[in-house]
């Protein structure tokens, strides 16, 4: 019994350390790759490459407060991810059984959740660069762009960006690091919340996360 519990715990911690590493990579990679408004994009590699270039400009900017830069960054993030597609995918089967009101509430909150999760590390920029190394078609609509994130004092990280051609231009629909998909990871996390407390419970969790104050104070 004891042995089983121990093994179980170590299994958990392996998964947790994977997820932590994964999130760290995402936190570094996403600020690098995202800021870009719809410019002329000939192919998905250029789309991701351009985002990387422009991200560095934003990250190195010193105008405005960190909060203003973060706000600006979140808007750009929301524009370059297919937030509603990812949101529906991540909710899985529960999307179809949710009421229209639940769907609307969830999607509005999911955008906040997504951009908050991936813009966490903005401002912690220490000279990372993103290089596109390969591209392959996943299916008729989707392309996977492989990138190397080069870091000044650490080994590079490989990240795969799943890019979909939509009527509104290319949109990122998933990121995979070390074989772990961001969308699938979130999907299992959300499924366990929905399993315990239903879709309303998940909405409540997202609402509470968004309701937290997120800026440090300097006085009062």
């Amino acid at each position, binding site marked *: 019994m004891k042995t089983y519990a121990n093994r179980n715990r170590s299994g958990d911690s392996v998964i947790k350390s994977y997820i932590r590493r994964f999130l760290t990579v995402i936190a570094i990679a996403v600020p690098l790759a995202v800021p870009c408004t719809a410019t002329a994009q000939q192919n998905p590699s250029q789309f991701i490459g351009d985002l990387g270039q422009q991200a560095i400009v934003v990250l190195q900017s010193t105008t405005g407060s960190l909060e203003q830069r973060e706000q600006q960054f979140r808007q750009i993030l929301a524009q370059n991810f297919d937030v509603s597609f990812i949101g529906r995918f991540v909710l899985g089967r529960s999307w179809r059984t949710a009421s229209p009101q639940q769907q609307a509430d969830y999607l509005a909150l999911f955008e906040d959740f997504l951009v908050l999760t991936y813009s966490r590390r903005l401002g*912690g920029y220490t000279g990372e660069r993103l290089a596109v190394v390969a591209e392959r078609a996943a299916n008729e609509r989707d392309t996977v762009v492989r990138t190397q994130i080069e870091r000044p004092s650490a080994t590079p990280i490989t990240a795969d960006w799943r890019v979909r051609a939509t009527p509104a231009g290319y949109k990122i629909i998933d990121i995979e690091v070390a074989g772990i998909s961001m969308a699938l990871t979130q999907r299992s996390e959300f499924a366990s919340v929905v399993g315990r407390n239903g879709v309303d419970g998940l909405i409540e969790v997202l609402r*509470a996360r968004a309701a937290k104050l997120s800026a440090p104070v300097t*006085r009062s």
Partner: protein
Amino acid sequence: MAQLLQRLAAALVVVLAASQFAATTAKADMQPGWEAYQRGDFGKAISLWRDLADGGDARAQYNLGIMYDQGKGVARDAAQAVQWWRTAAEAGYAPAIHNLANSLIAGDGIDQDYAEAVRWLARGADQGFARSVYTLGKMYTYGLGVTADEEKALGFFTQAAELGNPRAQYNLARAYRDGDGVAQDFARAVRWYRSAAQAGDAAAQAALGQRYAKGEGVSQDAEMALYWTSLAALQRLGRAVVARAEMVQALSADVVEKIDARVAEFRPRVTTQ
């Protein structure tokens, strides 16, 4: 007697000087961490605030909670965030009380406990902390940790709206528009939609645009309708994007251009709550 007075005066001077000194150092102490944070040097900010937090400064404790919650300069650790917020909350610091309550609602870094969340929110509300007053209203709307009570919820929304909270203003406006728990009152609905819209709330901007389009609680005005609807559309609110496209069809290009220029100049009213 004169000597006593003299001594008293001297003591008073010392006390005043000390409190003055305490006030300025408290302010100065937070500043280096703040500057490091703004530069994006999160590790430095954390170490500066940690010294203050260990010395019992509730604001520094609250700030450390933010860094752990957001994973800035450290690996995200929701449980550590909750611990720092709890310490500052127990000292009565309202922003920490608010975040601790929301961690309890989300079950983020701590077991979910609606009843305890309500107790903390009530403490924040007692201090007039608008966000906590609003969230407390929501707990009564959904019956989380308390028995659902629309009347109490509206009471809290009214209080938070008057304290300047845009979400509360929006909820209150909607209640007046629909006569939901209050006598229907379009003029009051417009007043609260306007407050929230001016603070940049997209849903409120779209709703205010619709009041102008329909002439409900305000004189019908197609230009003002376009103005507020455009501001909501800029924030990518789906229904506002659709409504704006229809409004643009019905107006001349000159008018649309004029309104677009005013939209570009919009700056949200800064809200502290």
